[in-house]
């Protein structure tokens, strides 16, 4: 019997793979939709911005996100999916359509600097969630995840996995609705 065990393990693994290949990974509702963004108080990371830019305050809370719609992007330098979405975030930042706030999830600051230095920095401000506690409060399963907040600081949309141009097409009307 014990000689058949490896075969059983293989069958279980193959079943998982087969299901994994079929799935569209980005469909999952968040219980936070329509609710105010969970509270946080995180240090910001000082990054070399364009000359003359105003440096961000040393710490920020959820209150600082109010006033205009904002995308809160949980990411990390060690995350492959984040690298995947990065060019699109850069494009979004260049277009200036929306403010991007990055929350660096369980990541060493030096790694982050290196990563942003290499790939470019699309964020208006980057906060450091070294312990991952904010991620837990926000219900982050894993990076990358992107929350769309309206001007009142309510979560109106959550993207699990890389932010794609298709997802952006769904997000944009939500922003226009909340701005007016």
């Amino acid at each position, binding site marked *: 019997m014990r*000689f058949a065990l490896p075969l059983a393990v293989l069958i279980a693994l*193959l079943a*998982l793979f*087969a299901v994994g*290949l079929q799935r569209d990974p980005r469909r*999952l509702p968040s219980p936070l939709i329509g609710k105010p963004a969970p509270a946080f108080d995180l240090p910001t990371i000082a990054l*070399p911005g364009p000359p003359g830019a105003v440096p961000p305050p040393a710490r920020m809370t959820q209150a600082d996100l109010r006033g205009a719609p904002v995308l809160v992007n949980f990411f990390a330098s060690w995350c492959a999916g984040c690298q995947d979405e990065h060019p699109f975030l850069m494009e979004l930042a260049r277009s200036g359509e929306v403010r991007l706030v990055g929350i660096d999830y369980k990541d060493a600051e030096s790694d982050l600097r*290196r990563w942003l*230095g*290499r790939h470019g920095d699309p964020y208006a401000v980057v906060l450091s969630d070294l312990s991952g506690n904010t991620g837990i409060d926000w219900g982050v399963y894993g990076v990358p995840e992107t929350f769309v907040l309206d001007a009142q600081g309510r979560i109106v949309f959550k993207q699990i996995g890389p932010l794609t141009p298709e997802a952006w097409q769904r997000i944009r009307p939500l922003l226009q609705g909340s701005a007016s």
Partner: protein
Amino acid sequence: MSAELGHFALILALGVALLQWGVPLIGWRRRDARLLAFGASAAHAQFLCVLVAYACLTYAFVTKDFSLAYVAENDHTRLPLFYRVTAVWGAHEGSLLLWVLILSGWTVAVSVFNRRLPLEMGALVLSVLGAISVGFYLFILLTSSPFDRLYPVPTEGHDLNPILQDPGLALHPPVLYMGYVGFSVAFAFAIAALIGGRLDGAWARWTRPWTVTAWMFLTLGITFGSWWAYKELGWGGWWFWDPVENASFMPWLAGTALIHSLAVTEKRGLLKSWTVLLAILAFSLSLLGTFLVRSGVLVSVHAFASDPTRGLFVLGLIGVVVGGALALYAWRAPRLSAYGELNLLSREGLLLFNNVFLVCAAGVVLLGTLYPLVLDALGLGKISVGPPYFDSVFVPLIVPLILLVGLAATVPWKRARLAESLRRLRMPAAAALAVGLTLPLAIQGRTTLVAVAGTLLGVWAAGTAVQDLWRRVRSKADWRAGLTSVPRAAWGMNLAHIGLGVWAIGVACVTSFGAEKDVRLAPGAHAELGGYTFVFQGEREAAGPNYTAQQGSVLVEREGTTVARLYPQKRLYASQGTVITEAAIHPGPFGDLYVSLGEGYDDGSWSLRLYDKPMVRWIWLGGVLMFLGGGLAASDRRYRLARALERRSAQAAEATAA
């Protein structure tokens, strides 16, 4: 025209592989020596066919035949000749062709070197290898042919991915594939043993050199990969726990376990069914690696184009090959396993521990690599598991493993006396302690717990290996006689263990003392790092054959004397509109200085990343030593002698029968 010839040769190779699979199997059922002997001829014919196909594709790349879709995607008129040749394996279709070429090469090698094997055994091995080739030919021909034509023919190609335009890449995939594919031979031997019912010390002795050869290439391939990533990805890191890296590392761990359990099976006739299972596992993990890289189920830095049909095909292939093997195992292994006494305080006992640690390490890497996929399959969202997980689970497994290396080299087979072994280990232990405490201080002037622990482990592994060689040499009266009396296998084993030690020292030092700094410097300004002064002297334009670059000039000084001039580049490959950072590295045996160029600003200043990487080369030196050790071990005289003896006895038996 040549493309059609290549395509046709590939179809022909499929036909030959089918024969190579079926005919010896029928011969085995009917006990027909002529049919059994057919496998070797088929292997040679198959190799010829796939070589023609490969040559045709290479010809298309060299002559820039953009009427082939694959060439148009990965070639460019201004790509240098060297990269036009290596671009053949720069993407999915061509790298699969390289895969079957290497598989076919291994098959030919088996058919040549195993003439001394019992005919039935050799024929079954070739049959299994033929079956694997059939699967891969079908994969290429049905889902990913590199010979598909494109119409209208583009006037210019899309160019080879610029991060692959590096000499490191020229070496990395072929060597890595040599290792991946090489495990198919150990796999075929295991299946042949299960079918034929012969699983003994002789079987282990036949399998060992093949496994060690595959393992040494995989080691070298991973080493090249790490070196390439360090050089080319511009992050100054040497290992990222990227899924594709893990895909090559898992078979390595399983293969390392296999090498050690084969030793136990050969010397003591124990752990037989476990060894067979490991042989299946090592090759299965190689296949899994292919699946992970090719299917895009896991997002990765290196992953090539993803395509669900290809993923499903590889999945089916894994299902058939590995599922078939494990079903055969479940059916036949109970009859083949032997029960014998295994004393834990003996070399075989310690090697069993070694296997437990290695397989657990492969298991946790597998878990970390697949966990995102499992969560996804269960509908729990898509996540990425990163280095924090791997570092925290891998280190506790590798540390006892290195301790075991020293212990197992000292303890004899069968039964050891604890006091005697401990007495022998006093010298290496003292050396490890002394060097571990002083070396980091001597080189860096400061020390950390990680540096002490890593150096201690490294000196321990290397020291016990040196001691083992020393004892062997000293056992003869004359040192010259002693030197020649040491078998190559012992040189190889100890050299590989020294390599492991060197690797550990490198890892410990670079993680403890590596320093980095992000700076923004105007021309003429300078920054300090690790006792060096980096002066940014300005930036200018530079051009290569198919790119334009902004090239910074950095002068590195130490106490007023010039250490190096570094020219990091930011290259724009116009063909793909891709910008690549080309770091400038000043290499040294005790540390690298590494500068890469960031963003340029309007006022003429640049952001630069500076790294001081002490002992980083020791990591790759360790890998190269393991490779050389594997080479020595695989070429041990014992295997050749044993084969000659077996052949003579087989001939004698035939003569008596006649």
